[in-house]
């Protein structure tokens, strides 16, 4: 999966699970402030991400630092890389 494909897959999760218009899904968009997700929505988001990417991220401390879409893209690109090397 290329970086562009990861970004596209993350955006698809937001469109499918939360019906957020694609034009709002910019790297600068804040997940809580701009997109309006709350802590319960994040639980749904984590479940959808895990299903889409086949990874376990629920207990990863780095997830707590994610604020923007760019953070999320970078985190998943990193995770995919780690998974690939392992």
């Amino acid at each position, binding site marked *: 999966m290329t970086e562009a494909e990861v970004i596209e897959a993350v955006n698809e999760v937001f469109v499918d699970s*939360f*019906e957020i218009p694609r034009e709002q899904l910019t790297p600068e968009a804040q997940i809580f*402030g701009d997109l309006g*997700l*709350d802590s*319960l*929505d994040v639980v749904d988001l984590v479940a959808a991400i895990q299903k889409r990417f086949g990874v376990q991220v629920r207990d990863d401390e780095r997830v707590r630092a994610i604020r923007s879409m760019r953070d999320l893209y970078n985190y998943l690109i990193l995770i995919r890389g780690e998974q690939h090397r392992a």
Partner: protein
Amino acid sequence: MKSILSALLTALLNLQFWIFAPLLTAIFALIAVPYAVAFNYTVRDRRRTLRLIRRSISYYGAMIVRCGWPLVRVRYVDHAPDETPPFVFASNHRSSSDAFLMGCLPFECIQALNIWPSRLWVVGRVGRIAGYLKVREMPFEQFLDDGSKLLAEGCSIIVFPEGTRSGSRRLGPFHGAAFRLAQQCGVKVVPIAICGNERIPPRGSLLLRPGRIVVNKLPAITPSQYAGMTPFKLKNLVRDAIRQHLDNQSGV
């Protein structure tokens, strides 16, 4: 000269409010609380006692906001008067007066409280007796359990899904817990749009500014309307309904 007179009048009417509101609170505590205890002892029906307590709190709230008259004028508008409870009411939150303004709703209701109001001596204790939900201090599963029981009894639940008061005309993002509860129980969600009270009182102040407040009960979003929607979609649908109404009333 005119502005000095206006400021003097505002100060006098604030004095009126701050004399009558504590007096009313004391009368409420001295009469309503013993009456509820006596009622419970005589009738021995927990459900009827709770209904009495909750309606008394609503009357108290409605009277408190009227203590500000004529400086502050409050109007309640029901845009769909034929709907029957229970409801999950979701209101915008501009000012600390919002909790009292909910007394305008002619239904048996409890409120979901944030941390600081639940720690106030009177509000915390009376709220606990009435079954108010300390939404920030309980696990989500317990909120669902307790909320489901209240709705099953026919008691409506009022939430301020922004979580904290904005102190302005801005409408913040919504938290979704109450919408998940409504979906789980299959009850109607009623948007409440309060306009005109962002400076009554301003955030961080006790001074009431003159103004007109309108509490709008908007048409409910029914379970058949939100069937198949994600909680995220439902909360934003309710938020959009409130925002549209506030935009149309932007002069208020």
